């Protein structure tokens, strides 16, 4: 079954086309990797899907509902949730409060929201920082907090923007394990990532973007061996 359907999605910023005619169907419970050189429009695509930017053209259908042009908070509340490459915690607030805000989308009472948030914090192994100010977390902690806030919204489709970037290799393995667990639990995931080994280890399908457009889409191994893809990354000489 299709959870997300993207039709002819375009975003132009006064002349520059950041996302150019993306057509995509994401199946329920799929793990879709997204790669592409810097400036390929991957993050802009996430912003369009999550309602932060209105698309210039095209349509986004999530679980059968046309959510094109919906506001970001409404999209998040329906279960399509994104994280940021550059973490944006509420710095003057504790880790618990950071996550509890997101839990409120699912739980009305303050007590229920806090209990729920604690569960999520445990899940991403941030227990020892529960009462720390989020601004004081190290990078690895911030990445986990970013993930925790997204998970607190109980997403059915999770858009992850470089959750591994900035982590040292020793920190990557547990994060990859966590992502795999989430996926096993039934969350559909779209993952933007530059670290190719991680992408290949996790993805069931791979989308390659280049200059805003969709360059290739398919089985990960086949896609990375595609001469067109290699050329986009390394230049003609290497193709």
């Amino acid at each position: 079954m299709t959870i997300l359907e993207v039709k002819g999605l375009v975003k132009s910023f006064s002349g520059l086309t950041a996302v150019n005619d993306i057509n995509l169907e994401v199946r329920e419970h799929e793990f879709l990797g997204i790669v592409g050189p810097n400036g390929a429009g991957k993050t802009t695509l996430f912003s369009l899907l999550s309602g932060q930017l209105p698309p210039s053209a095209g349509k986004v259908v999530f679980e059968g509902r046309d959510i094109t042009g919906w506001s970001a908070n409404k999209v998040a509340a329906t279960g399509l949730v994104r994280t940021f490459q550059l973490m944006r915690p509420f710095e003057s607030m504790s880790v618990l409060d950071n996550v509890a805000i997101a839990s409120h989308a699912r739980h009305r009472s303050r007590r229920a929201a806090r209990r729920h948030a604690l569960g999520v914090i445990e899940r991403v192994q941030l227990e020892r920082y529960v009462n720390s100010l989020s601004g004081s977390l190290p990078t690895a902690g911030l990445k986990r907090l970013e993930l925790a806030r997204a998970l607190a919204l109980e997403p059915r489709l999770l858009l992850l923007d470089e959750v591994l970037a900035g982590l040292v290799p020793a920190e990557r393995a547990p994060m990859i394990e966590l992502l795999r667990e989430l996926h096993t639990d039934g969350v559909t995931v779209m993952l933007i990532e530059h670290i190719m080994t991680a992408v290949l280890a996790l993805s069931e399908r791979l989308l390659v973007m280049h200059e805003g457009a969709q360059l290739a889409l398919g089985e990960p191994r086949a896609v990375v061996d595609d001469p067109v893809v290699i050329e986009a990354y390394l230049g003609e000489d290497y193709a």
Partner: protein
Amino acid sequence: MTLSTSQASADPPAAETRAFSLADARLPIAVTGAVVLAIVLVYTVGGRDPGLVTQSIVTGLLLGGVYALVSVGLTLIFGVLGIVNFAQGSMLTLAMFLVYVMGHSFGIPVYVATVVAIPIMFGFGWLVQLLLLNKLTISGNENGPLLITLGLSLLIVNVLLMVFGGRPLSVPGTVDGSFTVLGALVSYERLIAFGGALLVALLLTLALRKTSLGLAIRAVSSNSQGAALVGVNVGRIYALTFAIGSACVAVAGGLVAPFISLTPSVGEQFTILAFVIVVLGGLGSVVGATVGGLVIGLVQTVGALYLPGTGSLILVFAVFVLVLFFRPQGMFGAKQ
């Protein structure tokens, strides 16, 4: 083929912990110390009658409470919405006239009228934000809201002038009388205003820290985009915040009305001082606005012992400039 770009770790040393508790304690001590020192100096080498000084201090603190109340609303609106609300003073006037009309035409006692005025001003603020400001605030426009609140302020003042005329009016108090503390005269009405101000500041601080709505307001204040992404309806929070800021001036207006001569432009003197207090206390800080209000109240009345008339305002601005010189973010503001 490998596309893996090896990422250098951008981690700061894990041991980086900030000394929050220390800085938290240092600040109130410094502020209290400076105020106490100034008062001691006035008593010892000030060359003024001690009884008069005591009276000025008491009056100043009571006046400062009212300033604090007006400023708390202003700082909340600024902290969350980033709007400099020029209409704060005229909304205060509007609240006073509301209380006046309720008392004059329907015979409602002033403090009961104040309680009635709170939801009315809350609704007024909510509508102003929703209808006039939200579109601009959400799109991140900064000049638009400034001009709109300025326009709104002119509108309120002139409509009041049209309806009530410029002649000073008075709202009859319900609690007459006074008592003495250390030889200083304290009127009940001013004491009630002071107590009401502290109560509102306390309730507001608790609400911001302990309730779900407070959590959402703080989140929007910290990062509105991030708040939207975790499902917070930012437009609704903006409207509620402006409404709460307006409700604060309703309390202030009602509590001040019995001892002020009411004209359509009476709020303007508060606007300027409230701006000074908000910047002094640190933009967006409720505690800062409360402390700042008390300090400015003191400076104004004690200063009047030396520079009579509007001269004491010079001292207010001198303190303002001095604080900004040494602490540009204000007393309780976060370092940018």
